[in-house]
């Protein structure tokens, strides 16, 4: 029985909302300046993988319309950052809003065919809409992840139905920044509504089911009105509809329907039948059946905690700076070093996996990795020690008001970890009045900067949100 073994979602901390000066739109989730589709996917996968055995995972598939790279695989970066083994298959499913369900189909097929046992599917998006456009008001940023397998599933995949359509409804050409679209009445009636109806009705007909047979309907929609329209036309009543979270997180693109599915699973009980439908260059519908394992799903309810642990930006200008819509002049500081690909490769475990070392002689945990132990001076007698999933607290910190960064002041923290070890790192998603000695923190994968087309990723400390 192939299905979802575990799941997770990530919502950035920040929101544009009613208290944001110069906004005026509904509340929506906003990625921080150092977040992108890769970093949010890493956070979602981390939530999904909590307590799962990583060595049994055969593959990682990443769906997005906003891969930071046009040429360079994002899923390889994500797989490394979440500390998966080297002997796995990875792929990016890009350029379509429907990427997550296409990736899920590939994962299901691979598991059914026996070529894989467990496959991660993650979707993440950070789409840009032109300033002051309708899309800017409805878009949001976020990520979801599912581990698919054929045993101990929390929800089995019972059936699916897919159609592919071509239409210039919503698009963004290579090299462009903002999503474009054609006239709304045409693309919604002939595109979204028709394709979604055909997929859902087609699936129900094939499986001999009616709307009454479903506990929950989870589906993509470009906005709240179209979501309600489609639900009505398909014959679902309000109690069956999964809250689309407009006015809370917004349309998170390729991650949107997957995040709603995570929200549905968080509230589901054994025996529930869930309809899950996604849109983009056609439409795709799935039937899921929730099993008794749902009660033991790791991090259950985490998504809602992340949605609720939020900070509304005080003004639109901050958002504009984060998205580089408004150029920022940083202080007169030394230019950063050129980045060396050789150094990034050599240190990839310490950088992407956040692996330090533990001395096998004296057990001192150290970051970054050393050749000679800082305490007992034994040479080359270490085991790898990963800090990425460890919790700690701020031992000391400073706030650099002259740093060349978007989020002045740059907060530098010395973090002491509960299980031992210490890392000096920058802090992000920080509110200055929260930063204090003793604050509980965890590590979050972030984009430091982009130099020569290299997006440089590393870990920062963040306040524990959920």
């Amino acid at each position, binding site marked *: 029985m192939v299905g979802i073994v575990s799941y997770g979602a990530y919502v950035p901390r920040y929101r544009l909302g009613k208290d944001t000066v110069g906004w005026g739109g509904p509340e929506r989730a906003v990625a921080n300046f150092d977040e992108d589709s890769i970093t949010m996917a890493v956070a979602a996968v981390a939530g999904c993988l909590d307590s799962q055995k990583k060595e049994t995972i055969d593959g990682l598939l990443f769906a997005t319309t906003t891969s930071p790279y046009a040429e360079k695989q994002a899923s390889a970066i994500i797989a490394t950052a979440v500390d998966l083994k080297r002997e796995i298959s990875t792929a990016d499913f890009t350029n379509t809003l429907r990427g997550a369900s296409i990736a899920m189909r590939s994962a299901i097929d691979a598991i059914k065919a026996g070529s894989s046992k467990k496959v991660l599917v993650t979707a993440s998006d950070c789409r840009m809409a032109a300033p002051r456009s309708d899309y800017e008001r409805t878009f949001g940023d976020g990520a979801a992840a599912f581990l698919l397998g054929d045993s101990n599933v929390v929800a089995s995949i019972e059936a699916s139905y897919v159609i592919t359509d071509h239409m210039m409804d919503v698009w963004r050409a290579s090299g462009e920044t903002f999503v474009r679209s054609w006239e709304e009445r045409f693309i919604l009636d002939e595109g979204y509504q028709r394709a979604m109806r055909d997929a859902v009705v087609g699936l129900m007909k094939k499986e001999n089911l009616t709307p009454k047979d479903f506990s929950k309907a989870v589906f993509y929609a470009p906005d709240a009105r179209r979501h309600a329209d489609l639900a009505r036309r398909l014959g679902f009543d309000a109690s069956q509809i999964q809250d689309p979270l407009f006015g809370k997180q917004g349309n998170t693109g390729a991650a949107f329907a997957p995040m709603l599915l995570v929200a549905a699973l968080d509230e589901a009980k054994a025996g529930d039948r869930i309809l899950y439908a996604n849109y983009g260059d056609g439409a795709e519908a799935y039937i899921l059946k929730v099993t008794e394992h749902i009660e033991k799903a790791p991090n259950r309810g985490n998504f809602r905690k992340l949605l609720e642990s939020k900070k509304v930006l005080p003004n639109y200008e901050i958002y504009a700076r984060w998205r580089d819509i408004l150029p920022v002049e940083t202080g007169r500081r030394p230019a950063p070093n050129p*980045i060396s690909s050789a150094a990034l490769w050599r240190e990839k475990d310490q950088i992407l996996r956040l692996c330090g070392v533990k001395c096998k002689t004296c057990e001192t945990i150290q970051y970054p990795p050393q050749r000679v132990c800082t305490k007992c001076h034994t040479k080359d007698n270490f085991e790898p020690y990963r800090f990425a999933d460890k919790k700690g607290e701020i031992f000391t910190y400073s706030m650099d008001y002259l740093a060349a960064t978007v989020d002045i002041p740059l907060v530098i923290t*010395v973090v002491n970890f509960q299980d031992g070890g210490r890392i000096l790192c920058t802090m992000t998603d920080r509110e200055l009045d929260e930063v204090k000695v003793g604050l509980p923190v965890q590590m979050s994968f972030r984009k430091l900067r982009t130099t020569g087309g290299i997006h440089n990723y590393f870990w920062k400390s963040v306040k524990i949100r959920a």
Partner: protein
Amino acid sequence: MQGIKDRVAIVGMGCTKFGEHWDKDIEDLLVEAAYEAYEDAGLGPKDIQAAWFGTLGSGFTGLPLAHALKLEYIPVTRVENACATGTDAFRNACYAVAAGIYDIALAAGVEKLKDSGIAGLPLYFTGPDSGVEPPTPPPANFALYATRYFQHYGLSYEEGKKILAKIAVKNHHNGTLNPKAHFQREITVEQAVNAPMIAWPLGLYDCCGVSDGGAVAIITRPEIAKSLKQDYILVKGLGVAVGAMQGQLQPDYDFVHFNENVKAAQMAYAEAGIKNPREEIDIAEVHDCFTITELVIYEDLGFSPRGRAREDVEAGTFSLEGDLPVNMDGGLKCFGHPVGASGIRMIYEVYKQLQGKAGPRQIKKAEIGLTHNLGMIKAASFTTSVAIFGQKD
């Protein structure tokens, strides 16, 4: 171990005014400092048998010093050890003279920071790398110590800032008495406390300035010194201690002291035969790159008991009139910190004080003096130098 005590004498010193020398390059700074030192020693370029050239990044190799001073075909070695650069150049010259390899040697330190057009120190020392290391320029690094010091000793932000401000006020006052200082202006505690933030909790007046400058020392052995002048000054002890990233690697590293300071001081005190530094040292020039650094140095060097330097600050112990005047010339606070030059600039002040030639800043009892530098390139690990000087017996 024989140690350096009484084996090397300083016979000539020179120091430029420190400041924004838009019209001078390192050649100008080196020539000015060296010719003051020649005149002081009664020697000339032809007497110099070997030289050590300290600069963080205002020149590579020994060539810039040889070029500026036209030192012809003698050994010149460049020394770089972060903020301890100048003192370490001096220390290496001392060892060569003490070993009897050379009779007369010159140590120079210079830095030209103001050509960079940026705030703070330029990044001289790093090449292509992974780029992931957190940026911890000196203000951000030393602020980590201020935050932890306040926390550790239960000082509120306001209490901590006020103690630090008093150190800045003291050094600024001393700077007003020194025509070679970059800043020669009194400040108040209120000004210091309320100044714009640089790296929380350190504000503008908690940080030293950025300046250009150069300084030179000419050394020889005491028996030769006698023939040159009556008031030569003897080297009594030299210590250098370099950290090994303990601050980042060891979770029990406390961020309320600099162990490098403690170790370097122990070496220098042992050589000089100093048992009780608070009583035996008359004057000190210490590395006040930030006010918190000076506060912690008081404790690291044994001037104040642990956690109680603030009581001595309140009591005025380290002012010109106090029991143990520190940074009589205005310190890094007023001189700024042209990195390679600072150590020798400090030695210049101690040399003048021990000779009784420090003018309005002259300390009455100045027989044993200390200089100290503390440098970093990565957070929480340091290069420290401590040097002790005394009058001839």
